[in-house]
């Protein structure tokens, strides 16, 4: 029995929404960051599912790029987080509140 | 030559920017030289001008070819007097500003930039260019009021700026409506007049008309868009007031005659009665409010609202008669009067603001009408010139204002008889207002507070005497000026079918 395309899409949409919710609700910068990673992986799942359905290589190719870029983002993001942690001993976004409009 | 007249002041201004600010005599010399050169050239152009020769001294060049924008200049009987007037008033204002001490360099630069903008508006025949020049006048005036103005300068400056900006952006939209409906798309004002691109599209024509109306009416200013004017005038430095009343207001009426009337005659004819009623309200309201003023500068400012009402009455009458052959003569007469009034008001009100300035800036430092009294005996020269200017302003026969108002009333009586009758009664209020003012300041018991007041010095005489002489000359012998105007207005009326 093969899993239909719709199931993959539904799962990835669910993951994406979970990730979005995480970004909007959680206050710890690391958790927010992980939620974003979850969103990116939801995207990857969509790509792969479509690539399988359409038999088009571009989808899988896209996943490689997304993975690489996500890795780069991790590097930059963690560097910024570490810089903040060094000076304030916290990564809670609510404590990072000097700039208010 | 036209370009030279327009840009000489700007060149002077740029030279001033690169001159040391400590050398004040040189700065003033450059400013005076530039505006004098511009004025002399404009006189020279007048001498070469052929009456009835349509647009002359045309200059046409590509500016932004890819957008169809040209550098297109020219003068006719409508713009020529206004250009000369602008050059003259600017020259006199620069001369008058001799005693500005605060930030002289920047002041002179802004002033000359302003002059270039004003001259450009009257000479531009490409809509894009027209708009650019129109807007160029805004920023210098904003700073002139905002930096060198009176106590409430910031408020007055921004109010002036925002009012006018709203208007000019409405104009920009109207210009674009014209542009997109012309085939092929063009900004050329002469072509647009010829093509009448909106003749068959009444809705768009109405929109364009009201777009232009908003812009011009705010500039004129017509009632009820006049509220920026008293503020701006009261706060502006004297020379700024002179230019504001003498020239900037004319840009509005000039727009009506140059743009609204020939390009959108149908729409203007439909709405002319409404415009005429607003003009009438301006006349009556201006005169009545002016009577109630104790501040001399405010008084002159409101009298401007009143006088510009006369101009607009003339223009609206002509618009209402557009295309009706049997009323062509009346229309031309009303227009002649309106244009003549533009020049007359420029000369007279320019003089009046200088007169107020002479008293306020360097002598009494107050403008309260009631605080003076009996100055007539002490300051004979000052009193004489003030009397001439005020009497000219109220329309005494033999002086410039009378000629203008006479033509306006004669012309518009044939078209809007009832409105004209009411408007004529406005003259009575105007007369009452000025006579009462003269009485309060120059007659009556002398107020000892002003015992040490000197009469006008040479520089002030140089600024004021020419204007007074002009009022008398054109009051007694208006023929040369009228001929120039009449030729253009007759063509205009004939063209509007």
């Amino acid at each position: 029995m093969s899993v239909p395309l719709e199931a993959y899409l539904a799962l990835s949409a669910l993951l994406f929404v979970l990730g979005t919710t995480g970004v909007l609700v959680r206050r710890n910068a690391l958790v927010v960051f992980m939620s974003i990673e979850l969103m990116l992986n939801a995207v990857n799942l969509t790509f792969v599912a479509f690539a399988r359905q359409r038999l088009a290589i571009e989808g899988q190719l896209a996943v490689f790029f997304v993975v690489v870029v996500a890795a780069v983002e991790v590097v930059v993001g963690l560097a910024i987080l570490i810089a903040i942690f060094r000076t304030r001993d916290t990564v809670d976004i609510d404590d990072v509140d000097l700039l208010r409009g | 030559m036209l370009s030279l007249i327009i840009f000489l002041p700007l060149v002077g201004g740029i030279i001033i920017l690169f001159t040391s600010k400590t050398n004040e005599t040189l700065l003033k010399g450059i400013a005076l030289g530039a505006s004098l050169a511009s004025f002399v050239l404009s006189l020279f152009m007048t001498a070469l001008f052929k009456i009835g020769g349509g647009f002359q001294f045309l200059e046409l060049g590509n500016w932004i070819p890819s957008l169809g924008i040209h550098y297109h200049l020219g003068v006719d009987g409508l713009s020529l007097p206004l250009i000369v007037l602008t050059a003259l008033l600017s020259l006199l204002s620069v001369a008058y500003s001799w005693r500005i001490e605060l930030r002289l360099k920047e002041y002179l630069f802004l002033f000359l930039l302003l002059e270039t903008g004003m001259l450009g508006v009257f000479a531009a025949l490409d809509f894009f260019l027209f708009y650019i020049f129109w807007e160029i006048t805004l920023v210098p005036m904003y700073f002139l009021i905002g930096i060198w103005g009176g106590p409430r300068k910031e408020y007055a400056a921004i109010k002036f700026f925002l009012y006018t900006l709203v208007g000019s952006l409405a104009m920009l939209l109207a210009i674009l409506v014209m542009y997109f409906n012309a085939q092929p798309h063009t900004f050329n004002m002469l072509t647009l007049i010829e093509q009448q691109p909106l003749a068959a599209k009444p809705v768009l024509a109405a929109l364009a008309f009201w777009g232009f109306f908003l812009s011009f009416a705010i500039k004129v200013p017509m009632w009820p868009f006049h509220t920026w004017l008293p503020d701006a005038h009261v706060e502006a430095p004297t020379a700024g007031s002179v230019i504001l009343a003498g020239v900037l207001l004319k840009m509005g009426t000039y727009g009506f005659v140059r743009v609204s009337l020939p390009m959108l005659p149908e729409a203007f004819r439909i709405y002319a009665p409404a415009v005429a009623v607003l003009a009438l309200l301006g006349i009556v309201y201006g005169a009545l409010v002016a009577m109630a003023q104790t501040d001399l500068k405010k008084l002159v400012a409101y009298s401007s609202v009143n006088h510009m009402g006369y101009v607009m009455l003339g223009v609206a009458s002509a618009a209402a008669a557009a295309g009706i052959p049997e009323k062509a003569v009346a229309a031309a007469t009303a227009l002649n009067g309106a244009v003549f009034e533009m020049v007359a008001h420029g000369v007279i009100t320019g003089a009046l603001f200088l007169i107020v300035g002479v008293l306020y800036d360097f002598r009494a430092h107050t403008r309260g009408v009631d605080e003076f009294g009996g100055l007539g005996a002490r300051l004979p020269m000052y009193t004489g010139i003030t009397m001439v200017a005020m009497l000219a302003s109220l329309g005494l026969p033999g002086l410039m204002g009378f000629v203008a108002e006479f033509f306006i009333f004669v012309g518009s009586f044939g078209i809007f008889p009832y409105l004209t009758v009411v408007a004529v009664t406005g003259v009575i209020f105007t007369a009452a207002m000025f006579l009462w003012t003269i009485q309060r300041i120059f007659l009556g018991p002398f107020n000892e507070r002003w015992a040490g007041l000197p009469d006008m010095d040479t520089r002030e005489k140089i600024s004021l005497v020419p204007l007074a002489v002009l009022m008398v000359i054109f009051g007694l012998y208006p023929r040369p000026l009228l001929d120039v105007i009449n030729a253009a207005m007759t063509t205009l009326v004939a063209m509007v079918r």
Partner: protein
Amino acid sequence: MTPPAVDLRLLVPELVVTATAVAVMLAGLFLPAGRQHLLRWLAAVGTLAALGTTLTAGADPTPAFAGMYVRDALTRVIQATALLAVLLAQWLSGEYVERTGLEAGEYYALMLVAALGAMLMAASSDLIMLFLGLETLSIPLYVLAAFARTDLRSQEAGLKYFLLGAFGTAFFLYGIALLFGATGSTGYRALAEHARTPAVIFQAGLALLTIGLAFKAAVVPFHFWAPDVYEGAPLPATAYMSVIAKVGAFAAFLRVYVVALAAQAGEWSTLLAAISVLTMIVGNVAALRQTSIKRLLAYSSIAHAGFILTGVVAGTPSGASAVAFYLLAYTFMTLGAFAVVLMLHRRGEEADQIADLTGVAWRAPALGGAMALFMVSLAGLPPTAGFLAKFYVFTAALDAGQIGVVVTGVLTSVVSAYYYLRVAYTMFTGQPHEDVGFAGGRWVTAALVTASAGVVVLGIFPGRVISFVQQVGQAMR
């Protein structure tokens, strides 16, 4: 299957930028502390070389790399703008980074890499390429925002920018994934083909893609990060990101909406028109209340994003040319305004309050005059670049029948005149603060002079530049 042809000659401008970035970074490591200023020369020479190669590159549409990349007139114009932006931004930074001890090879390298990202976005003809360009643009900007490592405000700006940027990227990618699912390809051509009979999934993908781009361009309702980030980041970094992010994002808007989806103008222009109207209103109204010049310019950049968007809404070739022209004008006037602020300091700190500008014009008339010029231009008054840019986009939008958008644009321009003129007015009145000093230098002066010249020339003699950007439109016909 034959491997796709690789024609590196097309990539010369991008390669020069990359090489410069690498060279500057390495040189930064080896130069002794006292000679770090030589990096500026190196970066400037490399950028100018890239600019030269871009301008001399052909404008005939040349696809390459299996249809991922295209070099055409749009590529050329946007790349030139991006390079100009990075050049001016380097000059602006010169004395500031020296003063604050931030000068390092990475600083200039990051700027150059961000420019490279914008250049790639302009040259993309495939969504994956667009994504890579976008990230190449964004990631260096996150770092630049946080570049003052020990400054709490800069850290915070970097974190916010990073988290929200990555959040936006996720939407953008999900949009690409759905579009891929709907069309079976990531190329723009496939988009154009499927746009005629759009499936629900296609529409959803496009909407998500738009959200992602809206995040990057700071368009309402995805603008809220911009004021905080702009305020916290080091001044020259703020200046640069406010320009380069716009250049890249609008290049993408043009590529996706005007080039790929041109046939379906009506479908999405309503959505874009609504966004544009909202952006103009929110940006301009919010700017009224600002007291910090960085926040003011942040909201002003939001407002300008709305104005630029009107050109995209038009969806016509002349709209695309107008957007290109606007980006160029925006580069000059925004960087110019930042240059003026950079030439001042308050007790060694950034003089970033509007009140700090009080009376400064009388102590430095040229500075005051320049600021007045930039403010007049940002407000869109003639005879400056800002006016012509607005005139151009509004004309294009009006021609496309977008009357409501244009009227909103015109009305909000009046609002903007109020707050821009207030800045200029502040410089010309009152007593200057004692603790505000000047921090000029030849680099920032060079940037200021170039920007002023650009604003004036684009405003008064724009003929050549307009025919340059018009190639963008002509290429689309």
